[in-house]
C-alpha cells in the first residue's frame, strides 16, 4: 500500500509535466540577462505555440555600488532584475521554475500577465531541491511584471531582486494610434530596483553571513520606505561608463522599464518618448512625444524612441535625487553625425557683452 502510493506520487508529476494536450508547436527559448532580450519576432504570421522558458532561482551575495556595498540578493537566473521573456498574444508560456538545493528558502512566481492562481503564485511554491512547471495563456498584449510572492515575505523577496518582465507582443506587432505598424531595432530592458541596505551605528553598510541573517534588519529599513539605493540592473553604474548602452543615429529603441515595488518616472536627458505605452499595455494607443513617463510600482512601461542626434544620453528616473544620488541612471552612447538644425552652439560661454547705451527697453519692443 505504502509502496504503491509512493510509486503513484513519483509518476504523477511526470504525467502532469507533459502538456501535449494542446497539440501546438513548441519553442524553447534561452533567456538573456538584462538590459538585453532574447531574439524574437516583432510580428508573426504563425499560429500560437507553446514557448518554453526556464528560470532558476539563485540566492547570492552581490555588490551594488562602487564603494563595494554588499547585499544578499534573491534572483531569477542570477540577474537583478530577472531576464525578460517575450511571446505573442495567444501563445502559451510554459515556465519551469527551479529552486536548487543550494538555496535556503522557498520561492515561487506571480506573473502579472497570467490569469488565475494568484498569477501562478499559488501553484509554483518550490522548496530548495524542487522544481515546478506552470503553463498559462498570454491573453493580453503588453509588458508585465513577474515577481516572487512567497507567503509573508513578498516585499522582501521583491526588493531583494526577484522581479522581471514578460513582454506579450500583439501577433501583428506594435502599432501607433492610427494602427500603423511600429518597429524597433533594439530592446533595452531597464529593470529598476529600490534597495534597502541596513547600516550600523556608525552609518556604515552592514554585511551578513546569509540571506536569512539579513532579513530582520532589512525589514526594519524597508518599513521606513526610504531606499538606500535606487538602481538599474541591480547595481549603481550597471549601465554607465564602460557598461553604457550604445546606439546609432536613426536607430529605434524600445525601452522597457519595470519597477515591481515603487513608482518611477523614466526620462531621456536630451531625448523623448516618441511613442509611449505608459501603462505598458499595447491594446491602448501609445502617447506621443512625452518628456517623462510614469511607471507605476508593480508595472512595466514601454517607450519607443528614435535617436536623432549623436552624443551621450542619460536615461534616468527623473526623481533626480534617486538618479544622481541613489544610482538610477543609465547612459547611452549614440554615434552619428551632428545635426545643426536640431541644435547648434551659437556662442560659446564667454563674457556678458556690456549693455548698449540707448538700447531699446525689451519690454517696449514687445509692445
Amino acid at each position, binding site marked *: 500500500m505504502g509502496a504503491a502510493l509512493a510509486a503513484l506520487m513519483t509518476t504523477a508529476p511526470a504525467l502532469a509535466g507533459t502538456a501535449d494536450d494542446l497539440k501546438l508547436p513548441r519553442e524553447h527559448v534561452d533567456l538573456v540577462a538584462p538590459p538585453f532580450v532574447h531574439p524574437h519576432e516583432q510580428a508573426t504570421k504563425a499560429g500560437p505555440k507553446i514557448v518554453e522558458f526556464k528560470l532558476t532561482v539563485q540566492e547570492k551575495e552581490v555588490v551594488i555600488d562602487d564603494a563595494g556595498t554588499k547585499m544578499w540578493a534573491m534572483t531569477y537566473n542570477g540577474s537583478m532584475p530577472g531576464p525578460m521573456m517575450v511571446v505573442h498574444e495567444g501563445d502559451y508560456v510554459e515556465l519551469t521554475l527551479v529552486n536548487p538545493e543550494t538555496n535556503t528558502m522557498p520561492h515561487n512566481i506571480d506573473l502579472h500577465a497570467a490569469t488565475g492562481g494568484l498569477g501562478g503564485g499559488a501553484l509554483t511554491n518550490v522548496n530548495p531541491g524542487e522544481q515546478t512547471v506552470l503553463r498559462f495563456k498570454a491573453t493580453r498584449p503588453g509588458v508585465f511584471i513577474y515577481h516572487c510572492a512567497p507567503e509573508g515575505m513578498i516585499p522582501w523577496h521583491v526588493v531583494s531582486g526577484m522581479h522581471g518582465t514578460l513582454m506579450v507582443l500583439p501577433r501583428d506587432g506594435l502599432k501607433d494610434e492610427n494602427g500603423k505598424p511600429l518597429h524597433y531595432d533594439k530592446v533595452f530592458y531597464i529593470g529598476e530596483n529600490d534597495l534597502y541596505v541596513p547600516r550600523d551605528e556608525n552609518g556604515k553598510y552592514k554585511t551578513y553571513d546569509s540571506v536569512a541573517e539579513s532579513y530582520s534588519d532589512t525589514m526594519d529599513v524597508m518599513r521606513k520606505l526610504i531606499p538606500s539605493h535606487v538602481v538599474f540592473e541591480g547595481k549603481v553604474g550597471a549601465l554607465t561608463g564602460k557598461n553604457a548602452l550604445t546606439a546609432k543615429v536613426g536607430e529605434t529603441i524600445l525601452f522597457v522599464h519595470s519597477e515591481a515595488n515603487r513608482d518611477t518616472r523614466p526620462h531621456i536627458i536630451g531625448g523623448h518618448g516618441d511613442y509611449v505605452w505608459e501603462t505598458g499595455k499595447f491594446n491602448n494607443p501609445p502617447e506621443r512625444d512625452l518628456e517623462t513617463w510614469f511607471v507605476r510600482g508593480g508595472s512595466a512601461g514601454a517607450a519607443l524612441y528614435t535617436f536623432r*542626434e549623436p552624443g551621450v544620453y542619460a536615461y534616468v528616473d527623473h526623481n533626480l535625487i534617486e538618479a544622481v544620488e541613489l544610482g538610477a541612471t543609465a*547612459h547611452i552612447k549614440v554615434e552619428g*553625425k551632428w545635426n545643426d538644425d536640431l541644435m547648434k552652439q551659437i556662442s560659446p560661454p564667454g563674457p556678458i557683452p556690456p549693455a548698449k547705451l540707448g538700447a531699446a527697453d525689451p519690454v517696449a519692443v514687445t509692445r
Partner: protein
Amino acid sequence: MLWLMKVKTAMLAGALTAPVLTAALAPSPPAHSPDGAIRLTPVTFTYRAAGDFSRGGRPVEGPLRKLRLPADLLVMKRQVTVAEYGRCVDEGVCPRVAASSGALDAPVVGVSWHDASAYAAWISHKTGVTYRLPTDEEWTFVAAEKARDEALPLIDPADPAQAWIARYEAESSRARPSTTTPQPGGTFGTNSKGLDDLAGNVWEWTDSCFVRTSLDEKKETVTNVNCGVRVVEGAHRTYMTDFIRDPKSGGCSQGVPPANLGFRLVVELSPSVVASTVRGIAKLLRGT
C-alpha cells in the same frame, strides 16, 4: 560636461561662501612645525595651464609652459593628518568633518576648500609661520613626475558629439584606486622631491581658481575667473566647487571622481618672497 555643471553650481554657490575663521586664538604650542616640511629650490618644470582655453571661439588645450618658481618653496612632506586637523577642530576653529577611517596618522579627507583654508589660517596663527594651500603651479612643481597631464578630447561646438563621446570614454576608463580608504602616510610612496603620497587615493586642494581664457593672436585674455571653483590635483586634475567635501560623479557625468579630498600646505618664506612669487608667476603667465 562635468566641470560645466560644477562651474554653474559654483556660480550659484559663490554668494553663499562665508569665511569660517572668526574667533581670535590664544597662542599655544605649535601642532605642526615647518620641520616636517621639505625645502625645494626652483628648477624649470613643464606646466599645462589649468582652466578652460579657447582660440577663435573653439576650445583648445591649455598652453604648455616652462615655469620656474621665483624662490624656494617649503612644502609639507605629507598630507595633513586626521590627528593634526583634529586639533583645529578641538579648538573650535575647523569644522568637524565625518571621520573616515579613524586612523590618526591617515590623511584627513572629506574636507572642503573652506575647511582646508581654515586649517591653514589656524596653523599659521598657532605657529606664527604663514601656511597656505599651494597654487596649482606649485603643486605641479612639487609633484614632479607624479603630476599627470591628461589631455581629454575637447568638445567642438561644430560637432559636439564626437569629442563628447571620446571624452566620456576617456573618463570612464580612468583606473579606480584599489582602495578608497585613506591609508597611513607613506603608503603611496615618495616622489623624486621627497614628498609622500602624491597622486595616491587622496586628491589635494589647491588655491587656484577656475579661469576661462581666450587665446587670440599673441594675446591671452582671461574672460572669467571663478573662485567658487578651485583646481584639485591628484591622479588626475579636476575642478571642484569649493564647499564640496565628498566628490562624486553621477547624472549626466561619468568617470572616476577623486576618491577623497584632502590637502597639504606650503609655507610662505617671507612677505618679500610672496610678493616676488606673485609678480614672478604673473610675469611668466604674460610672457608665454
